[in-house]
């Protein structure tokens, strides 16, 4: 039994299963909710199998269909992809459960195939071993995300989706041009081979610059963040959750692979610039979040700020800094999904998400407020939470490298975050009586938000294990400046 489990091509199944699920949901729309949930559970099972396989046997490489690179597609699972896959699986399961209660039938039949298709693209992206496959999966991810944003159907959502699509296509095309230049320079698109053959030349600088520009646009780093708040705020709540938690993560993941494996010298050169942009994002996003009057927009600007933290790892460059940034990413995914779900519960209950009028709603939803507060603790970086661990690691790296100004940014960002989180949480303690009709919120929706928020907090207590996972396979075990 163990041998069978260890030798199954889990990596391939992780991609095929949600794809099959999407097709099945499309073909049997009346059964899309149970089929979708089944698919989600199946993906979690496959990821668990993959986890076992990677932990036992080390990083895995699959050649799909038996045709290897360069004409075939290789899949590669090391510690980093595994951790991202696991995070996607957990958050994805949460979003699936939440969505089963959220959407009415008419929208649900369109949601489930698109969501499972997006999950397929995301899993494939995380397992890709060459930069062209990354382009394809990135495009698929973007297209399904756009369709999901437009699901809500209102004018705001449609224009936000249109803008998102144009921006996404622009980013991907810049990336593709970079791929073309890299292929021309080195004759391969495989990441491992590129890493070996890498030499500096103007073409390479241009390529990496183009690819980074495209990816930064997709990760919404300041000042290329303008498309994110409208898209994340006007989408339906589960879509906002998956956008903030998972989709922006994907382009950052590619950027990380690029800078760490393919082109390390670039990280040193552009590090301070990226750090500066990240710092601006942290401060700008925080200030904008504080000014918002609607809850979903506040959370969307919070995403802009949190993404900025990740880029502080670039100027620091130590393995500890990268791990800290990744841990922040991990905690952010859980916490941000929980926050959006909490906002969705409040919207469902009270019919609006105006922050100033939250007091009439908040007291009647203790589970939801608890979820929002716990998620807020992680986003603020207060102990005990995954966010605190990530913040600590980045602070430690900043002092280690003597670049104390990033520590200052981390602290100020934390203070701004506390300001806007407590602005919302403060409403839980008011004396206002409920003055209008309230709709029921399904228990599944409240509990999913709470469980994900708890996961973000628990990540603070069980950090060594996920961090140890990151050591499996390049780029964190050796090869990178300590």
């Amino acid at each position, binding site marked *: 039994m163990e041998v069978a489990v260890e030798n199954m091509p889990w990596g391939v199944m992780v991609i095929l299963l949600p794809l099959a699920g999407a097709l099945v949901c499309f073909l049997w729309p009346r059964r899309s909710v149970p089929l979708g949930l089944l698919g989600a559970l199946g993906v979690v099972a496959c990821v668990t199998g993959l986890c076992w396989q990677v932990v036992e046997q080390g990083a895995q490489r699959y050649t799909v269909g038996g045709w290897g690179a360069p004409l075939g597609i290789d899949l590669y699972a090391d510690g980093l992809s595994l951790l991202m896959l696991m995070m996607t699986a957990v958050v994805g399961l949460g979003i699936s459960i939440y969505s089963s209660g959220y959407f009415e039938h008419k929208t649900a039949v369109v949601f489930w195939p698109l969501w499972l298709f997006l999950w397929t693209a995301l899993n494939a992206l995380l397992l890709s071993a060459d930069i062209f496959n990354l382009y394809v999966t990135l495009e698929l991810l973007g297209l399904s995300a756009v369709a999901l944003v437009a699901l809500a159907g*209102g004018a705001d959502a449609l*224009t936000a989706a249109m803008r998102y699509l144009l921006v996404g296509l*622009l980013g991907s095309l810049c990336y593709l*041009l970079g791929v073309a230049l890299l292929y021309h320079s080195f004759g391969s698109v495989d990441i491992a081979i590129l890493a070996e053959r890498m030499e500096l030349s103007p073409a390479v600088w241009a390529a990496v610059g183009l690819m980074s520009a495209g990816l930064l646009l997709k990760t919404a780093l300041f000042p290329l963040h303008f498309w994110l708040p409208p898209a994340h705020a006007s989408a339906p709540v589960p879509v906002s959750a998956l956008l903030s938690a998972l989709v922006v993560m994907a382009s950052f993941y590619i950027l990380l692979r690029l800078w760490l494996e393919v082109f390390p010298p670039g990280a040193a050169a552009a590090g301070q610039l990226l750090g500066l942009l990240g710092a601006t994002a942290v401060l700008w996003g925080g200030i904008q979040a504080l000014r918002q009057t609607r809850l979903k927009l506040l959370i969307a600007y919070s995403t802009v700020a949190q993404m900025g933290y990740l880029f502080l790892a670039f100027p620091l460059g130590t393995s500890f800094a990268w791990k800290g940034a990744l841990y922040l990413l991990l905690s952010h995914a859980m916490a941000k999904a929980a926050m959006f779900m909490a906002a969705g519960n409040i919207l469902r209950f009270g019919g609006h998400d105006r922050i100033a009028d939250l007091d009439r709603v908040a007291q009647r939803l203790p589970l939801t407020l608890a979820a929002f507060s716990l998620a807020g603790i992680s986003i603020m970086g207060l102990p005990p939470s995954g966010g605190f661990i990530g913040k600590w690691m980045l602070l430690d790296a900043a002092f280690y490298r003597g670049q104390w100004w990033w520590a200052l940014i981390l602290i100020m960002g934390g203070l701004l975050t506390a300001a806007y989180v407590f602005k919302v949480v403060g409403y839980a303690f008011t004396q206002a009586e409920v003055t209008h009709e309230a709709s029921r919120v399904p228990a599944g929706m409240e509990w999913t938000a709470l469980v994900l928020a708890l996961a973000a907090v628990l990540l603070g207590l069980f950090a060594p294990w996920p961090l140890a996972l990151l050591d499996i396979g390049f780029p964190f075990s050796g090869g990178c400046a300590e």
Partner: protein
Amino acid sequence: MNSILLYALAGVGLFTLGLYALIVHAHLLRKILAINVMGSGVFLVLVSLGGRTPGASPDPVPHAMVITGIVVAVSATALALALMLRVQAKTGQTLLPEERLE
């Protein structure tokens, strides 16, 4: 200057023209067309750089990439056009809010 380099530069030129048009023009259809032009520029670069030396048989890998890219571009354009029509139906305009004249 050999023909490969010429084609590649033309591709880059198309890319730049498309980028300019994307930023400057306000009408959504023009933006979509601009994206398509950019895409074509990238494909041109890929294909031309795939001809290793004039006369020898070209490298098939960039051709495969371009075919994949064309498929992706077609789907993306279809989605973009459908979305544009929906935007027009809902808002009566084919402009993004920040470009509108009011």
